[in-house]
């Protein structure tokens, strides 16, 4: 009974409507090609499976031992054996030809209109956009994380690699999965038919928080994408002197900027010398990188896309927006009213308590004193308030 219940639950789970990582709901040209291949293959495999099971069932029941004499033994029927060899071979050829064609289609890079570098590390994804004429034109490189922002209806080519261990990049609605391997660059086509958010998940076990290594692709129409690019290249604006955010800037510089880069952040020495604050994650983190937080509040997620920066209500408004309204809503970023301060506060207070990571002193001993993930910084509540106020202006 228990087994029947479990099996029924597993089967019924396939009927879920709200399943953002459903492989049967393609939302882009590449995923559609896979979909067009997989349903006939599943159909053929299903028919063959049913026939084989039915044949086995028939033989088991019809010829079960009832005390009858041993039937006549033969040494094969060549015609039947040849037929049963040729038939599966024909089925495999029938499946193999469209499969090979789809593989070549998915590997085609000739129609690339936009290039984005994707780098996996424990346990988040970094996206950097090289300066290029593609993507509608990007004048300066852009670095972001958590959400991969792409122009809709555009052939994007992802150049995938990893800084530490093997990960796998997969956004089911837009394409199949592709491993990211240290020292190698793999390419993956990506195209979304309409503006919207498409969920994904690392699909190669990569350590303690593998299950928390999520990703989201955000497709914007080309005009909105250009607006997003413009926002990402906006120069740094210091918080108003004396404000909570200004205190947060100092707290951020003293505690967070060792690993997290905020482009344009600088410090002023007592003699008035201004020097840029440059993060050195290579000295503290095994992967040698930490998310760039320059425009954190233009994203909707943090900590490897594990938590939303938006409250549930605001998040639902963005996720459920129509393709026409989506871009404008997404480009609003995270406002003070929509900020999910609860999770962000817990994260800053003690990140390893919220997401399993190798970040304690004992665990660091096994990796040359470097952490995997974000350590607990021991900040007090006042400092956390100040840093959140500062981050809220990183938009």
């Amino acid at each position, binding site marked *: 009974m228990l087994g029947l219940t479990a099996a029924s639950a597993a089967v019924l789970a396939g009927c879920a409507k709200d399943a953002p990582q459903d492989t049967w709901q393609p939302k882009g040209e590449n995923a559609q090609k896979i979909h067009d291949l997989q349903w006939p293959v599943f159909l053929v495999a299903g028919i063959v499976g049913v026939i084989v099971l039915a044949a086995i069932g028939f033989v088991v029941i019809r010829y079960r031992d009832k005390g009858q004499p041993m039937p006549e033994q033969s040494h094969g029927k060549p015609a039947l054996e040849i037929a049963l060899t040729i038939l599966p071979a024909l089925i495999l050829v029938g499946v193999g030809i469209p499969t090979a064609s789809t593989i070549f289609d998915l590997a085609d890079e*000739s129609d690339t209109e936009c290039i984005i570098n994707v780098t996996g590390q424990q346990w988040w994804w970094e996206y950097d956009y090289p300066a290029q004429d593609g993507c509608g034109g990007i004048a300066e490189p852009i670095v972001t994380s958590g959400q991969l922002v792409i122009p809709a209806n555009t052939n994007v080519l992802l150049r995938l690699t990893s800084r530490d261990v093997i990960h796998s990049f997969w956004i089911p609605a837009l394409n199949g999965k592709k491993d990211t391997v240290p020292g190698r660059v793999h390419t993956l086509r990506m195209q979304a038919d309409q503006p919207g958010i498409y969920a994904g998940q690392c699909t190669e076990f990569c350590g303690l928080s593998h299950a928390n290594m999520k990703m989201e692709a955000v497709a914007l129409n080309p005009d909105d994408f250009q607006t997003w690019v413009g926002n990402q290249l906006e120069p740094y604006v210091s918080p108003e002197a004396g404000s909570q955010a200004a205190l947060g800037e100092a707290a951020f510089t003293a505690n967070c900027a060792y690993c997290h880069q905020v482009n344009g952040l600088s410090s002023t020495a007592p003699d008035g010398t201004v020097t840029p604050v440059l993060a050195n994650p290579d000295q503290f983190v095994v992967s*040698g990188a930490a998310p760039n937080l320059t425009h954190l509040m233009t994203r909707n997620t943090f900590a490897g896309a594990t938590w939303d920066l938006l409250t549930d209500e605001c998040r639902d408004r963005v996720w459920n927006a129509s393709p026409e309204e989506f871009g404008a809503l997404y480009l609003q970023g995270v406002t003070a009213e929509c900020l999910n301060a609860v999770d962000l506060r817990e994260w800053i207070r003690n990140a390893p308590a919220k997401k399993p990571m190798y970040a304690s002193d004992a665990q660091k001993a096994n990796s040359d004193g470097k952490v995997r993930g974000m350590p607990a910084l021991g900040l007090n509540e006042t400092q956390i308030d100040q840093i959140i106020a500062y981050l809220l202006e990183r938009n």
Partner: protein
Amino acid sequence: MFTTGSKLFIGSSVLAIVAAVAFGVSYDGAAAWTAAIGLISVSIALLFLMAINFWVRDSNVSGMDSDATTTSAAAQERPSNSMWPAVGALGGALVAIGLVATPVVFKAGIVVLLIALFEWLVQAWSDRASSDRRFNASVRGRIMHPLEFPVLGAVGLTVIIYSFSRIMLFLSKESGPAVFVILAALITLGGFLFASRPTLKASVVAGICTIATLGLVSTGAVMAIDGEREMHEHATVSNEPAVCSSNEETEVDEKASQGVAAKSNVAATIIYNADGELYGQQVGMGEYSRMVTLQRSNTSQIMFRNLSDETVRLVANMGAFEVDVNGTTVTEKPVTCTTLVEPDGRQFMTLVFPKSSAATAPTDPYTFTVPGVEGASVEIVVP
């Protein structure tokens, strides 16, 4: 008065006492005491065995006792022949040699001793199963074959593969392929002949295979002793500014860049063409560019192709950083360069940029250059 067995134990006991005295006189310190006490203990144990042997009269059965000729232990079927005592002796010898020579031999001796002990115990146990030796052998086989066959198979394969590898490493790179093509052809021919003559006796096939295996193993052993062929190691990159800016070359391994693994991992190809221009090309980015993007803190394989008529090298200028050396601020300008690359040649370099482009001084950006060629420069962007 003393039986033969008793005399053996008496002699051994006396020998142990003499050895204890000799050891005690020859050496000083705790080691001498330990050895002397150990040898005297051995002597006492041997005397104890002598007493038992003396008491049971070497377990001889009296010829007058007719019942004893059929019922005594000595009258039972003798155990089957066993090689394990000999193997055990080999293990003992290896242990002794290993104590003097090298720990590896000592450990191997211990392993051989344990195997011999275990095998001998199982054989002795199976010999008591019945009076039928064939049945006893099948009992032993049922226990030991599931262990012996996989272990022997693995050991045999290891020996063959190791022998094979020694031969490959001994032969020159030129003769190696020819030898193995011929060898592979012979094996194929042999297999064909065996298959085409199904009436061939199994003993003939086994004999040929044994001779071939022995030939392979003995050749491998000889070549292992003789050593590997000479393999030159050439530097392919340098981190010395003086080297990177010079036009002199010491060594070039022309084939170092032909590894398939390296070629399949190229983050960027930097091309120096006949017009004296330097371009970059990256996976997925079709066009040649004066700028390449490399990820921060990530190992990047760079291939340099020299399509010009000159012999040149590629230099990666990895910025300028102020570092504290014993309290003094010093500006470091790390560089990495390939060796001089001949026309139509190629060379690899592996780079890691731990800091973004923003971290380096604006006057010293990350670039690829060709020394001595004005304008031959590709910007490296590290986001």
